[in-house]
């Protein structure tokens, strides 16, 4: 039986009608431009400050068509924290250069390491600090995050956003986050725990995007822990 014929496990990536009617964005491609911005935004959230060096590796359709689709300025827009409809999006490469950020794009040959036509692997660096994130663009500006290297942890999420990550030495943070989500009727699909020395990383896969107010509350829940909502 042809491998492709096998129905893959159904993944619910599109949880809101605004994933298919929206985003409001600056062209030309929702997968290759808006999706690339979203991958950049994930990298920005994980790194938390402006990097000195950006390396983006493109695979398959991204490698073939990134120039035509403006994927380069899009991904850098996300890294700079611009939203999809920000008028600075088309000028992001110049803006990054002026800010002293060195940006490099590499077109990879062969198949995507995570088996998807629209794959970008992003590496942000500043001195010794470094993160890696691999995202795939599944259409209409929606993405999945497949691989993250952060603070000595390597995680391979199932992909579907939103994902709440906390890196902490205090394991009770997880239950406090859970309680806060429950109070607000946000379903947690799975929780994954990683340990590295005395540090823990908890990955909470959420069923829906928290409201703006709740988002702030979650991110500020514990000042000694790193809390990131992708």
């Amino acid at each position: 039986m042809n491998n492709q014929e096998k129905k893959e496990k159904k993944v619910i990536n599109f949880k809101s009608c605004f994933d298919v009617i929206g985003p409001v964005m600056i062209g030309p491609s929702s997968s290759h431009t808006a999706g690339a911005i979203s991958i950049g935004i994930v990298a920005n959230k994980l790194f938390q400050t402006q990097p000195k060096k950006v390396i983006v590796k493109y695979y398959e359709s991204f490698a073939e068509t990134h120039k035509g689709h403006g994927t380069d300025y899009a991904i850098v827009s996300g890294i700079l924290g611009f939203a999809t409809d920000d008028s600075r999006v088309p000028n992001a490469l110049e803006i990054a250069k002026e800010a002293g950020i060195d940006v490099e794009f590499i077109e990879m040959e062969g198949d995507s390491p995570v088996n998807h036509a629209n794959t970008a692997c992003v590496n942000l660096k500043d001195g010794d600090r470094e993160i890696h994130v691999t995202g795939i663009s599944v259409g209409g500006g929606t993405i999945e995050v497949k691989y993250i290297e952060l603070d000595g942890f390597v995680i391979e999420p199932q992909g579907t956003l939103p994902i709440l990550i906390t890196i902490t030495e205090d394991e009770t943070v997880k239950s406090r986050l859970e309680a806060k989500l429950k109070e607000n009727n946000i379903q947690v699909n799975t929780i994954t725990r990683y340990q590295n020395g005395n540090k823990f990383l908890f990955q909470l896969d959420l069923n829906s995007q928290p409201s703006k107010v709740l988002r702030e509350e979650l991110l500020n829940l514990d000042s000694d822990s790193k809390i990131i909502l992708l």
Partner: protein
Amino acid sequence: MYFSIEEFISEAEKTGKSLSDLMIEQEMKQTQMSFEEVWEIMDYNLKTMEEAVKRSSEGDGVFSPTGLTGGDAVKLKNYRAKKRTLSGDDMLKGVQSALGTNEVNAAMGVICATPTAGASGTLPGVLFTIKDTLELTREQMIRFLFTSGLFGMVVANNAMIAGAMGGCQAEVGSASAMAAASAVEAAGGTPRQSSEAFGMALGNLLGLVCDPVAGLVEIPCVKRNAIGAGNALIAADMALAGIDNKIPADEVVEAMRKVGINLPRELRETGLGGIAGTPEGKAMKQRIFGD
């Protein structure tokens, strides 16, 4: 959440609720937002669409930085003014909005992806022509978009909406089917007729390849949206006439998914095959990007 078209059509038939209401209810539940908040976002999306269409038909029109596309919405506007068209003015009004929106997209203007940027002209094409034909209120126009979203989510989660994954049938094909279903609701058709229109529209565009010249969302994307809009209007009219599609809408979505994964890589947004692979298509790529 509704995972199939049959689920929400049965729900609408059972409860007497409109499809747009079912979408709004699901959205409120899913995001914990109020009715007003959800409505406001869709209102903003509609405004974005209106502004793009308006911009495309003023002066000489809009042009992309590459010069490959632009100005066609204005050409069509001038042609319509002569009042001697072959497919009728309502149809061409839709085509004008569809072309115009994608011209704005190619020109790096602001658009609303429906479901994608490459297919962003199809829904406005249908919506802005039936707005005049049926004298739709703003509320009905916003509801049109919610209904489109209800169908679109099922396609996106069960098949695909990215050209790189499933070809243009997943983009313009999905958009056309979403628009056809919503047009039926706006015209007073039943939820079942919406689903028939959806199935016909998607079925008509099965196999549509994604082959952007030079990897740009310009040729043939802009004109394909015109066809998506026209196809949606025809499918909606057929459904309103009582014609059914014979094959259930969910099975058409599954067929689209299977066709999509079986399309060769060259025909899935790599910019290598189809129109992109023609001698002129390759020459354009060479002129724009060099080697």
